[in-house]
């Protein structure tokens, strides 16, 4: 089915307005309710309001698709269910009464919204509407997050191109810059980075230019799984909202937006501290947080404010995220809604191809089969009976994350990375904090602080999460002291690492309120003091914080790096092997620091919580380059160090970029002990926080000082108590159950990953996915793509390790040339393993040529084939050479006697009559002895010749090649003599250039033949252009013959062309009467081949303008070779072809009959010649019969022997 066939039959514009407003679009084909499914999660995610199904063309297909760049006017590419809202909705709050549907939405949202968020929503007026991604329905009763509010997003920004700045709002998505270099040939598996707006935090190198969307292998999105949480499958844009029969998210138009569209966009794209984070779709941890007065945020530095159309590269990254963490925790998120808006923008920017990657189920829209298949990781949820939260519920889970953030003094769990897996229902009941105690939390908003517990969502109260959050010290804001420590460590790190392009991010890109760490509280009227809010919230929630979390949190809500530094050794003890001793310490002596997010996250108390990351997107990977340093390289190097500890030194030389970063970090780590250890102890994104530092900040501020004020407060917080950490993950934890079922992504995964994940046996999968270095390396073979992942050596099976060792040994083999004479002769190590086999198992190394066992076998097979082929070719060459030698020797040694005898006999028969009369044994033909038939022919011929009167021009055509001169020259001479003797004036033409000249010489000889002249009684020779004419060559073949025939009947241009000049270029002097006389007499044709005969007979005919009844007659004088055709024409056209003379015999008869052999010498020569011909014919016949008899006997004898 083509896409055109799948498109709706009519557009929304053709629908009545009231239908469009009600969201009923494409009703006949799209309003089909989703089919019933046995999946309980699916049933619970069906949104009750605004059920807008997705058209068939938006349904995910079974393969990846290219998400095409969105053209500037998005009307054509927006999902149809979005179109009705474009320009038709009144600004909110509406001046007049809202439509009923909008009122319902508002009411529904208000009912679902926690009361403590309501004031914030009501605080700021808005002229935009928001979308409610599904309000909880009755089916969501079992959903612990059912009471959570749906994410809101500024769809105004999304729908208004002006607010997009007319440019690519995803221009800041630079993390795909590396993908440009590996633009695959098959773009069907590409995702345009412009459509991944919410991913922009992951890259910060160069903004993608408008109109030139960067291309990312979908394979590179694999490592985003951990961030997408419950949306492991990135399928298509429409998957963000709805897929297949899933209802689309409800639009909460009644939800107030606190910022005008421009402000939304500005915040969401540039100023939003979370914009740089990969807050994928519904997993945005702050999506559920009601945006509170984003418009009141402190303005950005004006001098550095990038244009809206071109959002600055995401230099914020994790640093920005952490900087804003306290605000997020307090609910005074500067632009939490903007984060939603960001990903919503990205989602809506996407075209809805059939099978674009599934970014995951968003809200209730993600209830399609594909989405659930992608959510297969939920099967491993500790609470299998509990339905996995839908996208909307996941958004509600964001509040859980927020709650977790509040309960964690470090505030690190507020990162989206943590939030998503927290939200997706993958919380381990045994380890996750008991969020039910959050009912005691103070309201994050000032207005909501007094909200009763009843307003707390049910899932919090019911204790969906395990009740393992022990009491903890109350949160305290970080103190400047810790900031100083961080600043110092960061400065030392920067000095060691040196300036990098990324590190040169101007400070102006960081909002001032982030730089100073102080929010302008005056601009946050509805919010309580951040620190107090956090303190209150954390104090209330700290009791529920488990011990392990409390230990890592210390007694403050903000990360205390110095305290963490002391806790770092303990953390190292519990680090996984790949993060611990084997990772970074093998290469350098510096203490290992989990500098990557995965490492730190792994040490999170919630590390053991099953993460959904295993459900990786096939063929997707994400460059985790964040901030100033290339995190991807860092992680790659880390992995490399893990994999090949013994080859670390060599790998450092071979991969300067990666290792340089690694060394830099490690050196800096060694130099700054406490601070960096604290950084290393930072869960998740702590390292990124330290790395994503602008270099041009004033020293007093420092990069870390530019963090949020909570960080500053955290500096003064007491050190983190070395609380007993949860047991490290077992060496080989049970591999989470692979996604089952219906997912398309699963099939793709199986297809795209050939060497999968042995490391999963040793590490949690989500940790593995966190490492960008393990992102699949795409091997492109034609249109096939194979994704391979780096795996630790320890995780490799024994046979692979053995193979690796063998290949490493092969590398050291001396250079060998291919054997001489082989196909690959002279090529060094043509089939030898590539030297990079022993390189660290980074992506580049894998791409360079690590060979698997199958590949090694294939190489061996190829070598065997080539060897066999070489041997065969050599053998054949030797045989051919021997055969050639034998043949040459045979030719030289065995002359063919029979051939010699035959040739000798023929020569004797030909020459003998000319030397002796003994050979004249054959009877000479005489005219008197002719048969009646021959006599008639000769009579007709003589009649034609005798018709030539004195002075009459006669057309003679010489059309035989020089090879036929021996047979026809005598006949031609006889004819010319007879014509000249009769007073005729031959006009000679020819379609053969050489024949024309040969005829000229022939008639010239006759004209000057004294004997002939004497016999005629002429004293002077015949003169050209008076007694004869040699017109010469008639160009054009049969066309020339036709032209000649036409020229005889028309005194036109063509006549002058043919007859005006002879072959010497002299004027012929032929008059019209002479030319007309040519058609009255028969034309004598001397032809040596069938083609010549056919051309003349067929083309030399009277033209249309010829007088009635007049015809051009002919007399054929042909060779024996052309006799058959000439005889056929002669027999068929007796009236036009008067006679025919054939070959030497008729020539001899004609000469005798015309009395041209009057001289005795001429007669003798003619007789000898005839005898020679007779002897030759006889001898030839005899020889042929003799040879046939001998060979026949020989063959019969051979057959008898064989029988």
């Amino acid at each position, binding site marked *: *089915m083509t896409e055109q*066939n799948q498109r709706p039959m009519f557009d929304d514009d053709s629908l009545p307005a009231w239908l469009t407003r009600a969201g009923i679009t494409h009703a006949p084909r799209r309003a089909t309710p989703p089919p019933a499914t046995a999946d309980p999660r699916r049933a619970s995610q069906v949104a009750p309001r605004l059920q807008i199904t997705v058209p068939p063309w938006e349904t995910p297909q079974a393969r990846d698709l290219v998400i095409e760049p969105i053209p500037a006017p998005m009307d054509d590419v927006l999902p149809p269910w979005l179109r009705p809202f474009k320009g038709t909705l009144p600004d909110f709050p509406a001046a007049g009464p809202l439509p009923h549907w909008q009122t319902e939405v508002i009411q529904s949202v208000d009912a679902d919204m926690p009361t403590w968020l309501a004031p914030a929503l009501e605080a700021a007026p808005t002229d935009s509407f928001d979308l409610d991604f599904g309000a909880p329905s009755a089916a969501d009763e079992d959903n612990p997050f059912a009471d959570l509010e749906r994410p809101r997003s500024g769809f105004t920004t999304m729908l208004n191109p002006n607010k997009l700045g007319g440019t690519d709002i995803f221009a800041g998505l630079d993390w795909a810059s590396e993908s440009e270099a590996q633009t695959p040939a098959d773009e069907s598996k590409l995702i345009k980075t412009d459509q991944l707006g919410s991913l922009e935090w992951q890259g910060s190198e160069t903004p993608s230019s408008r109109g030139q969307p960067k291309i990312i292998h979908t394979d590179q999105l694999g490592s985003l799984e951990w961030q997408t949480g419950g949306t492991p499958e990135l399928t298509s844009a429409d998957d963000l909202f709805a897929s297949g029969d899933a209802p689309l998210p409800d639009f909460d138009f009644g939800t107030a937006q606190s910022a005008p569209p421009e402000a939304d966009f500005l915040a969401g794209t540039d100023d939003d501290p979370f914009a740089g984070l990969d807050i994928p779709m519904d997993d945005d941890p702050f999506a559920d947080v009601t945006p509170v007065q984003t418009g009141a945020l402190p303005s950005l530095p004006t001098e550095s404010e990038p244009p809206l159309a071109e959002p600055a590269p995401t230099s914020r990254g994790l640093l920005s995220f952490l900087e804003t963490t306290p605000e997020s925790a307090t609910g005074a998120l500067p632009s939490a809604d903007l984060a939603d808006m960001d990903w919503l923008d990205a989602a809506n920017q996407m075209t809805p191809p059939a099978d674009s990657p599934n970014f995951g189920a968003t809200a209730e829209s993600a209830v399609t089969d594909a989405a659930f298949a992608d959510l297969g990781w939920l099967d491993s949820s500790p609470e299998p009976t509990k339905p996995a939260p839908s996208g909307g519920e996941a958004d509600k889970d964001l509040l859980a994350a927020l709650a977790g953030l509040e309960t964690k003094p470090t505030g690190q769990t507020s990162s989206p990375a943590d939030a998503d897996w927290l939200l997706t229902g993958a919380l381990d009941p045994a380890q996750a904090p008991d969020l039910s105690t959050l009912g005691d939390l103070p309201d994050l908003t000032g207005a909501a602080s007094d909200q009763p517990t009843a307003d707390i969502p049910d899932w919090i109260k019911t204790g969906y999460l395990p009740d393992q959050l022990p009491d903890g010290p109350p949160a305290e804001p970080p103190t400047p002291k810790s900031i100083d420590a961080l600043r110092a460590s960061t400065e030392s790190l920067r000095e060691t690492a040196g300036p990098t392009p990324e590190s040169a991010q101007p400070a102006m890109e960081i909002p001032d309120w982030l730089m100073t760490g102080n929010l302008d509280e005056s601009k946050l009227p509805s919010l309580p003091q951040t620190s107090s809010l956090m303190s209150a919230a954390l104090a209330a929630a700290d009791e529920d914080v488990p011990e392990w979390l409390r230990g890592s949190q210390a007694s403050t809500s903000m990360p205390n790096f110095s305290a963490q530094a002391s806790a770092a050794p303990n953390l190292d003890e519990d680090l996984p092997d790949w993060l611990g001793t084997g990772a970074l310490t093998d290469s350098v002596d510096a203490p290992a620091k989990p500098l990557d997010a995965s490492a730190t996250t792994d040490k999170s108390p919630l590390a053991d919580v099953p993460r959904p990351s295993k459900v990786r997107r096939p063929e997707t990977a994400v460059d985790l380059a964040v901030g100033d340093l290339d995190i991807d390289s860092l992680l790659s190097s880390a992995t490399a160090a893990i994999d090949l500890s013994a080859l670390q030194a060599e790998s450092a030389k071979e991969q300067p970029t990666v290792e340089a970063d690694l060394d830099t970090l490690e050196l800096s780590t060694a130099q700054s002990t406490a601070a960096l250890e604290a950084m290393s102890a930072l869960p998740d994104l702590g390292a990124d926080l330290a790395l994503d530092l602008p270099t041009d900040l004033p020293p007093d501020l420092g990069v870390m000082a530019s963090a949020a004020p909570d960080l500053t407060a955290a500096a003064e917080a007491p050190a983190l108590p070395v609380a007993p950490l949860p047991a490290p993950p077992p060496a080989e934890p049970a591999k989470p159950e692979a996604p089952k079922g219906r997912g398309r992504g699963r099939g793709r995964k199986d297809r795209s990953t050939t060497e999968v994940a042995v490391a999963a046996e040793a590490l949690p999968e989500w940790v593995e996915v966190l490492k960008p270095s393990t992102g699949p390396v795409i091997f492109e073979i034609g249109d096939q793509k194979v994704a391979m992942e780096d795996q630790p050596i320890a995780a490799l099976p024994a046979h692979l390790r053995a193979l690796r060792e063998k290949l490493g040994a092969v590398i050291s083999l001396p250079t060998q040339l291919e054997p001489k004479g082989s196909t690959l002769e002279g090529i060094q190590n043509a089939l030898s393993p590539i030297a990079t086999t022993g390189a660290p198992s980074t992506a580049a190394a894998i791409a360079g040529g690590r060979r698997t066992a199958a590949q090694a076998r294939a190489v061996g097979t190829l070598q065997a084939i080539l060897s066999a082929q070489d041997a065969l070719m050599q053998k054949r060459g030797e045989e051919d050479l021997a055969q050639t030698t034998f043949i040459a020797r045979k030719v030289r040694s065995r002359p063919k006697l*029979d051939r010699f005898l*035959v040739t000798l006999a*023929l020569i004797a028969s030909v020459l003998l009559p000319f030397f002796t009369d003994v050979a004249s044994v*054959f*009877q*000479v*033909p005489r005219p008197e002895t002719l048969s009646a038939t021959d006599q008639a022919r000769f009579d007709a011929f003589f009649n034609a010749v005798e018709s030539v009167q004195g002075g009459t021009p006669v057309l003679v055509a010489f059309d035989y090649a*020089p*090879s*036929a*001169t*021996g047979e026809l020259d005598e006949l031609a001479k006889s004819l010319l003599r007879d014509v000249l003797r009769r007073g005729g004036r031959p006009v000679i033409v020819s379609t053969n*250039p*050489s024949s024309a*000249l*040969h005829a*000229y*010489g022939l008639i*010239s000889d006759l004209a*000057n033949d004294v004997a002939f002249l004497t016999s005629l009684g002429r004293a002077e*020779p015949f003169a*050209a252009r008076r007694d004869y004419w040699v017109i010469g060559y008639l*160009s*054009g073949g049969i*066309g*020339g013959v036709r*032209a000649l025939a*036409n*020229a005889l009947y028309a005194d036109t241009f*063509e006549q002058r*062309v043919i007859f005006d000049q002879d072959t*010497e270029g002299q004027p012929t002097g032929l008059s019209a009467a002479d030319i007309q006389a040519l058609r009255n007499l028969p034309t004598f044709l001397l032809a040596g081949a069938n083609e010549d005969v*056919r051309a003349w007979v067929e083309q030399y005919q009277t*033209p*249309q*303008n010829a007088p009635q009844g007049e015809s051009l007659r002919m007399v054929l004088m042909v060779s024996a070779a052309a006799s*058959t*055709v000439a*005889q*056929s*024409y002669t027999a068929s056209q007796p009236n036009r072809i008067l006679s025919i003379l054939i070959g030497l015999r008729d020539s001899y008869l004609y000469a005798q009959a015309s009395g041209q052999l009057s001289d005795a010498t001429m007669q003798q020569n003619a007789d000898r010649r*005839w005898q020679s011909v*007779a*002897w030759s*014919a*006889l001898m030839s*016949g*005899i*020889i*042929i*019969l003799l*040879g*046939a008899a001998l*060979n*026949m006997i*020989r*063959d*019969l004898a051979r057959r008898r022997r064989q029988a």
Partner: protein
Amino acid sequence: MTTQPPPRRRTNLRAALLTAFTVGFCFITLLGIERFAPLPNQVNTLLGDVSRGLVQLVTIVAALAVFLGVLNLVRVHSRKVRRFPQAIYSLLLILSLFIVVILHFLERFGTLRATDALGAPSAAPAISITLLNTFQVAVETALASLLFFTLVYAAFRMLRQRTTIWNVLFIAAVAVVLLGFSPVPSLSIFTSIREWLIAVPVSAGTRGLLIGVGLGVLVVGVRVLTGRDRGFRE
């Protein structure tokens, strides 16, 4: 599944124009060759004049084509001359061409003129004719004569590899014709057989060939007239 429509063939305007011209001129030539009774005499006359003009145009173009062929021959062999001595024959060809042309022009303009037996300047281009008869005619005749030996020996060995009825028949026909051509009185029977062979089987076969040729020409003409045969593109 919907079947994809076959891709549309791209219309080449140049080919279309050529086809139109070709078909048009073919019709004009055809009507000009033979008077078409339904048409008025004036029209037939006009068509005949046009047809003759076109035919004459063909001869002129063909003459120019010969000239171009000579130039192309010189160009090709001039390139080959660079690979001397492998291209010795190309060198000889070019030298012969220029020598003959130069001699012909010298003879034509009277600079170099042969004399006849009486010592008077020959009217005919004796030098050019002599060169033709000495080289081309002699060489071609010699090659034709060698063919005689070759054919005889081939017929002699024809039954060596395999004896079939058709081989025997062929050899018998050749022997009968050769023996019948030789005026040996005792072999007059072969002469009769030869004449019968030429008059009946050979003539029938030849006519069949001519009919086939005629049908082929007719088909080609129809295809050209209908635009199906566009050999002019090549």
